[in-house]
């Protein structure tokens, strides 16, 4: 029986290297695909929001955000995407295991739906990351308005994304429908070219 190797939707296009405007030193924009992340939608069932929050707190020590925010601990992040709905993002084996625990525990209290294959996650970071995103993202990403811990669900260049900020570099993760990923990539790289960008080696897909 053949073994099925997972393939990220960006594998063909996200070739590591340096592109766009030629400059020395660190690139103002760095793009890294994150096919290693596991994503799962958690959606509290009717009237169960508080209960879900309690269980999540108990199991992970994380306080479920009541708005478009991100909380994270040991590789497991919970991102508010809609009323009573979150996107769980797990990086690494330990986080993945605690996500499994969470999914199991929440059965009946929340709907949990795997989206690891449904979304491609791209990390965009560097001093000009904001300027690049501003070419397609309608949100105000200025540090006065959007900071690490903030998240949003919003279309970028006509493609629906979930976006969260990780640090003040700034670095952002963008989760987009995997079937649109190559199209998104085309927009992103065209937008970053004037600054010069680097495509970092992707993680192994899981």
């Amino acid at each position, binding site marked *: 029986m*053949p073994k099925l190797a997972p*393939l990220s*939707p960006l594998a063909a296009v996200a070739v590591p290297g340096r592109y766009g405007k030629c400059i020395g030193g660190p690139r103002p924009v760095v793009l890294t695909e994150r096919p290693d992340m596991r994503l799962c939608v958690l959606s509290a*069932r009717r009237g169960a929001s508080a209960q879900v929050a309690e269980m999540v707190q108990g199991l992970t020590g994380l306080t479920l955000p009541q708005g478009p925010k991100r909380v994270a601990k040991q590789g497991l992040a919970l991102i508010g995407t809609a009323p009573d709905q979150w996107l769980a993002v797990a990086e690494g084996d330990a986080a993945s295991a605690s996500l499994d625990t969470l999914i199991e525990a929440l059965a009946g209290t929340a*709907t949990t*739906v*795997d989206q690891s*294959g449904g979304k491609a996650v791209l990390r965009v970071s560097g001093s000009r990351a904001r300027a690049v995103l501003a*070419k397609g993202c309608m949100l105000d990403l200025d540090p006065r308005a959007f900071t690490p811990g903030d998240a949003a669900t919003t279309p970028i260049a006509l493609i629906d994304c979930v976006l969260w900020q990780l640090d003040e570099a700034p670095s952002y993760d963008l989760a987009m429908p995997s*079937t649109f990923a190559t199209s998104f990539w085309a927009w992103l790289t065209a937008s970053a070219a004037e600054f010069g960008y680097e495509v970092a080696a992707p993680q192994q897909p899981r």
Partner: protein
Amino acid sequence: MTSLSQTQEPFRLKTGGLIDRSQPLSFRFDGRSYTGRPGDTLASGLLANGVHLVGRSFKYHRPRGIFTAGPEEPNALVELRRGPRAEPNSKATTVELYEGLEATSQNRWPSLSLDLLSINSALSPFLAAGFYYKTFMWPARFWKRLYEPVIRRGAGLGRASLQPDPDLYEKAYAHCDVLIIGSGPAGLMAALAAARAGARVILAEEDFRFGGRLLAERFSIDGMSAAEWVERALAELASFDSVRLMPRTTVYGVYDQGTYGAVERVNDHLAVPQEFQPRQRSWHIVAKRAVLASGAIERTMAFANNDRPGVMLASAVRAYVNRFGVAPGKRVVVFASCDDGWRTAETLAATGVAIEAVVDTREDQALLASSFPWRVIPGGAVERAHGGHRLRGVTVRDASGAAIELDCDLLAVANGWNPSLHLTCHLGGRPVWNDSISAFVPGPLPPRMSVGGAAAGHLTLAEAIADGARLGAEAAKETGFDASPPALPGVEVEEGTAHVPLWRVGGGKGPAFVDLQNDVTTKDIELAHREGYGAVEHLKRYTTLGMATDQGKTANVNGLAIMAEITGRSIPQTGTTAFRPPYGPVTLGALAGQHRASHFRPKRLPPSHAWAEEQGAVLAEAGLWIRAQWYPKAGEERWQQSVAREAATVRRAVGVCDVSTLGKIDIQGADAGTFLDRVYINKMMMLAVGKARYGVMLREDGFAMDDGTVARLGVQHFVTTTTTANAAKVMQHLEFCRQVLWPNLDLKLVSVTDQWAQYSIAGPRARDVLAKLVDPAFDISNEALPRMGVTALEVCGGVPARLFRVSYSGELAYEIAVPARYGDALMRALIEAGEEYGIVPYGTEALNVLRIEKGHVAGPEFNGQTTARDLGLGGMMARDKDYIGRVMAERPALQGVERPILVGVMPLRPSRILSAGSHFLAAGSGYVAANDEGHLTSVAWSPELGHDIGLGFLKRGTDRLGERIRAVDLLRGQDVECVVCAPVFVDPKGERTRA
């Protein structure tokens, strides 16, 4: 480095101005080479070389020169650049000069100086406003053949390139506390005030240089030259992280809730955009507050031949001298109704230009006049200009009525100012008349916008500075900053602003233009009045006053003031026409941004895309998706061969098709079954776990909306599919039902379209292929997984999968879903596993053939105009429950027996070809709508039957099986006799799916 010699730019002043004399820039106009300097516009470059004739007017082809020094320019429109980058109608007064610039004049033939179409000028009595409404009607048939083509050929000013625009454009989004529009003294002070308070400020300036009128006048501020003061202010602004300075950026429109449209000309000052950069960028600026500091535009007067090259706004004359270091003439007459005339004369005199006379309409200036060193004609007016390609002189009528002839090559006209209030009107505001400056000033403002400086009608420098400081601080305060107006810099000028404008001077022979660009004269205005088009909006539309590229920036107020004079109404009674976006012309490219050509819309790629490309599949757009239509094999010359082979192989052996594009929705919750019962016409609540069912949804108006399968994975867990085309619409509809109609039901909806790669494996050997991949622990035998069975399992050693035994093709068939990342590998594995059975991949075309053979309805039948009954699915409509659309589906006209209903058709002669879109006509009936009995929706060549088959809607169709009918396609000249049959051509009992 070349130094500036007199022959190079004979009208360049030795000193002064904000240009870099050390660096020549060569450019060409109409094939001739000239030089200019960095800091020049094309207009100032041309003037430096003594070039005044730059264009021909729209209607009469009269010679035209440079009239202004800014975006209000009506005359000096040129074609900039060449080939695919050609830009017609570019204003020489705003085009920034660059090395190698090429421009050509427009609307002339054969050349600018000899334009044969200037014959129109002689015909002008025939071509008065609205003449075409009264003529070209006799004889009637000449209209289409002669008059119309001639009129249309004469249209337009510039020429569009026929080649694709090679440059890039992009959109961008910006947010701020305070947006400041315009960087004159008002804008700069506002920016300083807001920035010092800590607000996020955007300062947008249309010009390539910040400073507004300060660049064009000889003011001093705080003891330094205005230009130096501007530099200092800019340096301070640049030191704030929270300030974004945007030169070359025009705010063109105001939209709801503080959204502003702006276009940044990122690279228009270069011959070709810098690598990786867009030519222009269009900005959405979302501002909590906006300060409009857009200044004012000087106005002109109407007198005979006032369009001669060499007639120029006085403010422009000062701009050319002070900012560009150019003398736009050698002998000057100034014609003014206000102090700006004197200021102009002073400016010119200081550069050594001869002042022939100052004609001031004000008689009471006589006294003052004596203190000036040049001839003054108080109470006078220029009645007529002389000259052809260049002004030669003017006839002046003095206060006593005597005519005075003056020689001159430049006439500077000053007749007061119109505040640039366009942006205050985009949300419906109307300007109001202000008597003290005899101009319209902003009326009610858009929410959260304030106006200051000349734009508010506060025309002096001191007022502009004070306004800016106050409004900038106010705006910062309103957005939450602790702000107080900064100390005001000292200003040492006295500016008088009161005057009595003079709108037209009668008496002179020759047309007196009001709208220079559209060739609208005072006579046209009189005629419009005479014919009853006296309301301003009628005046505009009848004469085209203010409808050109400049949108009447120098014409509108004069036009309506003249109409007011004629009718005896006041100017405010006469009113203004509506200001609409854009404030200045905006390229379509900038507005489209990145979404052009192949990037017009994002592409959506199914999981097998890369593999399909490797196979050489022929791809096509299906909505946003790119799907394989068929997979040609060597030796297949026509697409029909490939499609027939694929379809036949499915029926005979096995095929695989990527159906991941179907919408997939995960539905979980205690009330999921109840919910599905209410949205589908058939019953879903009782569906057993591990089973799937075909379902149909209606819209609330009773028409069919979509179909798909509903599968029950658990007691509280369903997955449904939607058609590819309707996925988003159905999701929205279901969320509407869940959130709005039945908020108390306990369920959640999550789209999993992208999560699952889903392949259809169809054909008698389908199970054999699957069996090779399904992990041994799972039983997929006919008994374990019968028709419509559903199960979760694992494949290829533990990859989670879902297997649905559903069939669209009518064969033994499955749809297998795996997480999308395994999709590529699974496709390869399926093909490999199926090799021994002769497996083929099949595309959307074969899919279509197979479904038509089975009479399954799809997009062409589900077109929003058909009911479940029309589709032959009436039997599914449950009688004992409510569901969306149930009541409206019962309306009498939807029950009518005459409504066409789904049937199959086959050509009587098997060799005949059917075409979808044909209409059904009974045998012997003529080609008229009364005989129309329905139409053919879907057609395929059936490999199974060896001839064309079709689905369609036919009146009383179900009662007419076996009857003959004609499928008529008049567009392609076909009239095909057909037999009506049941809409299923293959395996009517459905036995194959059970195998």
